[in-house]
């Protein structure tokens, strides 16, 4: 049994990884195909679809909108995430689990329900749909991710480091600037990158809350109706995938560095 498991599990694992990457691999492949029909064998290699991208004004607008929304949502959800993660890791207080549950709730709610309920309240409040309402929606969706990234970054943080700083004469603000901030900076950057990535790829909230200003996924959704536009969409998708991958790799490296720091700080305790 042991031998069977040891033999089959790695094969299963590799097969699973192939299954996970399968759909992603086809994006770049068919994005350099001359034929607009995604079908093997590949007709011929071309970069035409990529060259066309910067010549599409609607796409450029959507990309700019996505950038604005992504940066705003990332910054704001990280700020809100810092408050929550700090309170959760630092204090034991009654209702801690309930509050944490509420903040993490968007993770386990059907996104369409969140989207339509936000749509309703915004229309009721007389807010016209715009990029601003998309940002509000994206913050809500990003907060659970920010909070979990930040919580794991703050958790290894030995409270006596801050006490040591106070003990050595530093004020509360000085302690935050000289000890807390440098220690948690990797987690914060990681949270910014993760939130930005989520916002960049998020479709449902943007679809309901965007009004006339499309973000990239909303733009792509519109293009999907036209079979002829498929290769451009694939080219755009490939670029987005590359960007996402880059951001995530940076986030992962930073997260690991933060974890290592927290770990070594904890050695003396262990």
């Amino acid at each position, binding site marked *: 049994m042991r031998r069977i498991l040891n033999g089959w*599990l790695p094969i299963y*694992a590799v097969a699973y990884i192939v299954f*996970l990457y399968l759909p992603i691999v086809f994006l770049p492949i068919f994005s350099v195909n001359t034929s607009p029909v*995604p079908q093997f064998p590949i007709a011929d290699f071309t970069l035409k679809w990529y060259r066309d991208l910067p010549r599409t004004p609607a796409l450029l607008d959507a990309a700019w909108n996505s950038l604005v929304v992504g940066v705003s949502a990332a910054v704001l959800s990280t700020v809100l995430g810092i408050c*929550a993660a700090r309170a959760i890791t630092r204090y034991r207080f009654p209702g801690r689990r309930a509050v944490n549950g509420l903040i993490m709730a968007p993770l386990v*709610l059907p996104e369409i329900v969140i989207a339509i309920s936000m749509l309703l309240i915004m229309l009721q409040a007389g807010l016209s749909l715009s990029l601003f309402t998309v940002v509000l929606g994206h*913050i809500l969706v990003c907060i659970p991710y920010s909070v979990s990234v930040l919580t794991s970054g703050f958790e290894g943080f030995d409270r006596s480091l801050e006490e040591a700083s106070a003990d050595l004469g530093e004020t509360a603000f000085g302690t935050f600037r000289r000890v807390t901030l440098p220690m948690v900076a990797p987690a914060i950057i990681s949270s910014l990158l993760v939130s930005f990535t989520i916002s960049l790829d998020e479709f449902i909230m943007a679809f309901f809350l965007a009004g006339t200003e499309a973000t990239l996924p909303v733009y792509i959704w519109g293009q999907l109706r036209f079979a002829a536009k498929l290769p451009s969409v694939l080219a755009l998708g490939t670029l987005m995938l590359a960007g996402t991958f880059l951001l995530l790799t940076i986030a992962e490296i930073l997260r690991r560095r933060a974890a290592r720091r927290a770990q070594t700080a904890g050695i003396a305790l262990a």
Partner: protein
Amino acid sequence: MTTAAGGSVPYRARRGTTGTVLQSETARAYALISPTLLYALVLLVVPILVVIAHSFWTQDYLTIDRTFTLENYRVALTEPIYRDLLMRSLVISLLVSLFTVVLAYPIAYFISFHGGRHKNLWLFLITVPFWSSYLLRVMSWKVILGYNGVLNSGLMAVGIIDEPSTAFLYNSTAVVITLTHAWAAFAILPIYVSLEKVDRTLIEAATDLGDGPIRRFLRVTLPLSIPGVISALLIVMIPTVGDFVTPRLVGGKDGVMIANAIQAQFGKASNWPLGAALSVTTMAVVTAMAAASVLVLRLLMRLGR
């Protein structure tokens, strides 16, 4: 120490006024978490309450009639079209969550127990696809499963089929496959975390007390990782029921789910109260189904012991 002597007076005065409030850990914690909490209350809790309120109202063109009525729920629960959509959505989300969890467990187990030094690399590899655009992944499945798609051309090249099959795309199966793929990372991570928490000496103890590999897995590892399985089940089941991108792109006519109907009420059909009632019904029913699944799972575990 003139500074201390001079400084102690104003400090004491400050403690006199606000000290008692800020002194308490609870007050400080809530002060710190309040921006985030308020955000969640105003933009999540209140909106959901507004949706619930709408579900008891009616709409006449653009005006909302705020007379209490259960009419929307009657339509949502008895109209065959909505009843069928809801049933299909539930079946699909149940299947998807079962498949994802069953497929995810071995991989989570492999990483946790045999990942060695590369655990983090494996986890990274597994999460990367999940971060790519959901829309594009769904579309990619469309490319794979389509009439002229990769799967058909592959099967024809190998000679298993002679002409392209239409069986892969535009049905519930395509929806289940796509969603199972989309939610994989969400199932693996919680299971992995719970497996990591299993104290390895417990497994050694089970071996020491005479259990073989299968029995000690069934009697120790599996029961201890059930919390992870449960959260994986919930984290997949509840959100999938409300997906409308996948059914729209790969579901065809038999793959349409309740979320598409909800979306229609807020779009073309423009009947907010009915859309709200459909949303509330979906949430309630899926929550009940999730609770039932958890109960069944717990019961199975207890019987197994």
